[in-house]
């Protein structure tokens, strides 16, 4: 244990929030003198939605409890889905392995160590049919955590083909696709990455297709959570989410679609991190800025077009491998921030997340954390309980000011896609991340169990491995190639190439291709052949 400190130590002398907003000893009405409640707050459910997007907030409907599942083969993950639904889960949140997420075939030489690891492996329509076998996809909401536009379209195409095969009309499908080009080009890395502009175009193809055929589907989820995990602070997280939404809206309008035809289905995904009041202010400010920017730039008639809806996952990056049970406390505070900030749905991260895939005990504790929050703390009784707090309103104003400044900077750089192409966004995130790392190393920023209140208990990392997935997927692909009509598959791939080369929406061609027996990898190879090989400007 730590020695010459008393039980709490002393408060860090740096009185700033995590993203650097200075904090005074106390706040008074003077600090929010410029706040006009009618203009800047409104009522819950009313513009500018600072106070939340629903009038009665959680009285009408509690947030959705959604926990992740996905590993090994389609059959194994299908078993987990059934278990979760049997136990009362109301939605499915499916994660895919990195190979699938990037639209590569499992038998690619680079894939050997990653097939079925950390998510389920899907190579073709047959896998998708098996993944959702017996799952009422016309009834439950299904989140497909497909981050990268390179693969999201093809795998979503397989999902749509699966529904068609089962006779389920697409209008009945409810769910979310992540489909975020920043995930592909900034947040994560992979072999043979698509050029940002092309990745962005593919993501908007899905938005456009869903607008026409899947009125209940969220075709994109701006993954602020992951921007944050990659290094962003709260301001950068919110600003990048809003900039991304505006970029998609610009492109859809350019393609000739009125804002109200697609904007109500744009959705976002935020983290909930340590700095409780700053996080609450982030959600509130983000809703206000989002509303104002959409009003100003697109003048929607449908009020839903300018409402920021979001899912929250409590921070993974804030959890520590040292003294892992401390993470139960951290995640509970994170979840509290999300609920005080008016989240629409919530995933609480498991306390062993820094060590391994969640164990049963940790996953259950995460679920119980949500239930304690709902049923014991009373925080969900009234909408936006922190409204009017001098401090929280001041922080909300300050977050808004900083988010707007960041958006202006992105505009000056030529917009989000250009700022990614030049490496500006990468350097922003890495710079913030590196500074934070140094602050932790130097002890300037305290992390309990890491640089203070430490102990000598060794860190035990445990990895889940599913050795059978590779062999199974290789067999699946071999069988696919043996049994399909090779001419039809080749023709469908040629049609896809034609659409991708021109301006035609790629999704209908992707559906044709997977139905004709093309593998996911073959579809996505088309995109890589045309616009692959982009070097991420990281160093």
């Amino acid at each position, binding site marked *: 244990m730590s020695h010459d400190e008393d039980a709490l130590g002393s408060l860090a002398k740096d009185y700033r929030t995590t993203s650097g907003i200075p904090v005074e000893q106390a706040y008074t009405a003077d600090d929010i003198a410029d706040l006009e409640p009618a203009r800047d707050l409104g009522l819950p459910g009313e513009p500018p939605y600072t106070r939340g997007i629903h009038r009665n907030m959680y009285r009408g409907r509690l947030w959705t409890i959604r926990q992740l599942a996905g590993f090994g083969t389609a059959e194994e993950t299908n078993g987990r889905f059934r278990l979760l639904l049997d136990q009362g889960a109301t939605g499915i949140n499916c994660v895919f392995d*990195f190979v699938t997420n990037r639209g590569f075939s499992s038998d690619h030489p680079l894939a050997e160590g*990653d097939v079925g*690891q950390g998510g389920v492996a899907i190579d073709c329509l047959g896998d998708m049919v098996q993944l959702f076998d017996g799952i009422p996809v016309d009834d439950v909401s299904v989140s497909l955590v497909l981050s990268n536009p390179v693969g999201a379209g093809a795998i979503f195409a397989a999902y749509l083909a699966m529904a068609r095969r089962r006779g389920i009309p697409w209008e009945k499908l409810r769910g979310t696709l992540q489909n975020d080009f920043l995930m592909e080009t900034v947040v994560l*890395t992979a072999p043979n990455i698509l050029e940002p502009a092309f990745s962005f175009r593919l993501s908007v193809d899905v938005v456009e297709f869903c607008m026409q055929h899947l009125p209940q589907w969220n075709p994109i989820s701006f993954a602020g959570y992951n921007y944050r995990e990659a290094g962003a602070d709260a301001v950068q997280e919110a600003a990048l989410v809003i900039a991304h939404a505006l970029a998609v809206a610009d492109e859809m309008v350019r393609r000739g679609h009125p804002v109200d035809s697609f904007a109500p289905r744009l959705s976002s995904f935020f983290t909930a991190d340590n700095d409780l009041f700053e996080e609450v202010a982030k959600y509130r400010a983000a809703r206000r800025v989002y509303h104002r920017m959409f009003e100003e730039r697109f003048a929607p008639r449908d009020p839903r077009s300018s409402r920021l809806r979001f899912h929250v996952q409590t921070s993974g990056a804030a959890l520590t491998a040292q003294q892992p049970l401390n993470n139960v406390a951290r995640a509970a505070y994170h979840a509290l921030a999300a609920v005080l900030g008016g989240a629409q749905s919530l995933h609480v991260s498991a306390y062993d997340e820094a060590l391994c895939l969640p164990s049963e005990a940790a996953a259950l504790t995460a679920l119980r954390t949500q239930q304690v929050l709902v049923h014991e703390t009373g925080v969900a009784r009234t909408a936006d309980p922190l409204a009017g707090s001098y401090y929280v309103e001041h922080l909300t104003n300050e977050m808004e000011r900083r988010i707007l400044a960041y958006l202006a900077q992105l505009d000056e750089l030529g917009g989000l896609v250009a700022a990614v192409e030049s490496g500006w966004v990468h350097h922003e995130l890495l710079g913030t991340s590196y500074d934070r790392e*140094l602050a932790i190393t130097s002890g300037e920023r305290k992390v309990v169990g890491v640089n203070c209140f430490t102990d000598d208990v060794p860190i035990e990392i445990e*990895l889940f491995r599913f050795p059978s997935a590779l062999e199974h997927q290789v067999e699946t692909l071999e069988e696919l190639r043996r049994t399909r009509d090779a001419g039809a598959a080749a023709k469908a791939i040629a049609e896809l190439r034609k659409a991708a080369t021109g301006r035609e929406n790629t999704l209908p061609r992707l559906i044709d291709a997977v139905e004709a027996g093309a593998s996911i990898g073959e579809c996505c190879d088309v995109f890589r052949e045309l616009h692959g090989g982009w070097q991420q400007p990281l160093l």
Partner: protein
Amino acid sequence: MAKMGFDAHYRGAMMVARHLVQRGMEVVYIGNRLPEEIVRTVIDEDAQVLGLSSLSGNHMVMVPRILKLLRAEEVMDRVKVLLGGVVPREDARALLAQGVAAVFGTGSSLDDIADWIEAAVGSGSGAVHT
């Protein structure tokens, strides 16, 4: 410095790379590559240290293959192989026995990694290449 296979998280590798550059070293980051490409780069760049970053758990497949190729190319004795990331204890033990020079797991400090490299390379072939 390289990532193996489809391992997708680069932040740790970039933090280390930035810090090593701050400490005066030259870092070549090649992203996600096949073992053959990684070993080819070690030879072409005449690298003294090969840093491999693993967060997805594919190191037990990829690292032994890289070590085998380094031996086949007869460069194993002039490059130190470092593995960083999420590495279970038993994996670390096995890979150290196979020829990995050091493993820096979760919670390692940037300075510890830089210090280790300075000590290891300094004792081998002279000054840090910058």
